[in-house]
């Protein structure tokens, strides 16, 4: 754990220096950080606990809407609305999980698509609640300590803090009782019960935590976009991208989702600027290549090979 925390510290230090070194590549860095945070949050549920959600865009949307509506309608500062969003996301996660956790495997995944789609339709159609299909503008933001929250640098640091907090959370959890409960439930619910673990409660906690963290990132995303439209922020595609990032990087590993974000967004951006209209095609091919050659994800596969090698050596000697 210490090793990982030190690693995180080093990365954080590098991150803090980043805007000074690359002042012109902040938007993409913010994307990487947000996706790292989302995918890592997703992974608490999807990787560590084995419940593959394809509905996490709902929480991103929730956070973004809380911030945008809170500011534009009620003049609430984003930090308050993000905290509220986190609480609300956890509550939503609780009921959502309560509804769907009797389902296992692909059935659970499909149910998350359904719930998220229903939430999307509500966001689009209930104008009194969300401003409807035309979306919400975020025109002004408070300036704490004279910091302009609309500046990419400030947003970069928010995203960096978000990603760091999420990764730190996972580092701590991975070594704690809760982390083992998560994994036990993932591997075998009956066997977990035999060890005195309440699988439903464990999954609910994971879902709530994952939802709350995701929504905080969503709040930052709302600030970054400053204009949110329900079609975009609640899109199935975003849910899929979040899951994809975690899985490509390596499910149930501490650094996998972050590596996934770096690789997918980095490569995606490279393709976008070099291949014009063919870039998504090449992106698809990249995904296929990773799946075929690193079926457990980048970090997952490396870790597995490492363990295998170690163990084979030990067994042979």
């Amino acid at each position, binding site marked *: 754990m210490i090793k990982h925390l030190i690693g995180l510290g080093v990365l954080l230090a590098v991150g803090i220096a980043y805007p000074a070194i690359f002042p012109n590549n902040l938007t993409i860095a913010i994307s990487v950080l947000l996706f790292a945070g989302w995918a890592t949050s997703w992974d608490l549920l999807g990787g560590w606990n084995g419940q593959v959600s394809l509905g996490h865009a709902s929480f991103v949307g929730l956070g973004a809407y809380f911030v945008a509506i809170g500011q534009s309608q009620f003049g609430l500062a984003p930090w308050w609305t993000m905290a509220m969003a986190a609480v609300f996301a956890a509550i939503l996660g609780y009921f959502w999980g309560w509804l769907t956790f009797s389902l296992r495997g692909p059935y659970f995944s499909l149910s998350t698509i359904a719930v998220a789609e229903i939430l999307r339709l509500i966001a689009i159609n209930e104008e009194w609640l969300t401003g409807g299909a035309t979306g919400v503008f975020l025109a002004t933001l408070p300036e704490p300590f004279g910091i302009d929250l609309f500046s990419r640098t400030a947003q970069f640091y928010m995203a960096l803090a978000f990603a760091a907090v999420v990764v730190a959370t996972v580092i701590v959890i991975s070594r704690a009782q809760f982390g083992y409960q998560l994994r036990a439930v993932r*591997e075998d619910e009956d066997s977990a019960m*035999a060890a005195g673990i309440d699988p439903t409660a464990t999954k609910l906690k994971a879902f709530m935590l994952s939802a709350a963290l995701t929504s905080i990132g969503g709040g930052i995303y709302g600030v970054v976009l400053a204009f949110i439209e329900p079609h975009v922020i609640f899109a199935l595609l975003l849910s899929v991208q979040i899951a994809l990032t975690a899985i490509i990087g390596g499910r149930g590993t501490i650094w996998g989702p972050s590596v996934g974000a770096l690789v997918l967004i980095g490569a995606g951006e490279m393709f976008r600027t070099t291949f014009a209209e063919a870039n998504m095609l090449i992106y698809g091919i990249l995904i296929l290549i990773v799946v075929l050659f690193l079926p457990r994800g980048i970090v997952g596969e490396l870790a597995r090979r490492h363990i295998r090698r170690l163990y084979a050596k030990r067994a042979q000697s």
Partner: protein
Amino acid sequence: MPNVLRADGITVKFGGVTAVNNVSLSLGSGEILGLIGPNGAGKTTLFNAVTGFAPMHSGTITLLNKDITALPAFKRTRLGFGRTFQTERPFEELTVLENVLVAAFLTVGRRREAERLAMSVLEQVGLADRAHQPALDLNLARRRRLELAKALAVKPKVIFLDEIMAGLNPPALREMIAFVRSLSAQGLAVLMVEHIMEAIIELSDHVIVLASGEKIAEGTPQQVTSDERVIEAYLGTD
């Protein structure tokens, strides 16, 4: 002998089929109760019902004079049940130590102490040297021991062993028999299902025989093995 566990009138149905029909049993600390019967007799189902893994149709279960009939499985575990599964179910992606750690966390919250407890249980079952190996890579005999270690790490008062001897070669079998005896010597109440008669005869204080979900005989190992019906339904004639 004081009763640790009592189960009265347990009935389990699957759809229209009655898998266990009105079976009762009781168990004192340090006692070993053997459960035998033909394949499909309902032994595992009875285990599942008592430990809370299969819904019961009727019956009551008391642990140390506390009615636990309505409790879910994990709460029964917390009150003192430990069990193994007939087809071993390790947490495959965790190491051997982590597998046991999961269970050890039930009684000790601090990681260091939980790890110490887990190690000591692994030592007890003779898996300490494999602690850092992925559970997936264990062979059958070791998987069985891991199953046992997980069941023991919750510090149970009653332990349910479902065919932990099946498929073991004779030396491994001897070790396992000795180990189960040591458990009862520590005061644990043991309920075991086994087809290996050698183990049943050697270990059980008391044996219950199930066939088609019904209790057809009960008594000391000697009594049941000479029972006509048991021979006909289960043991066969030579």
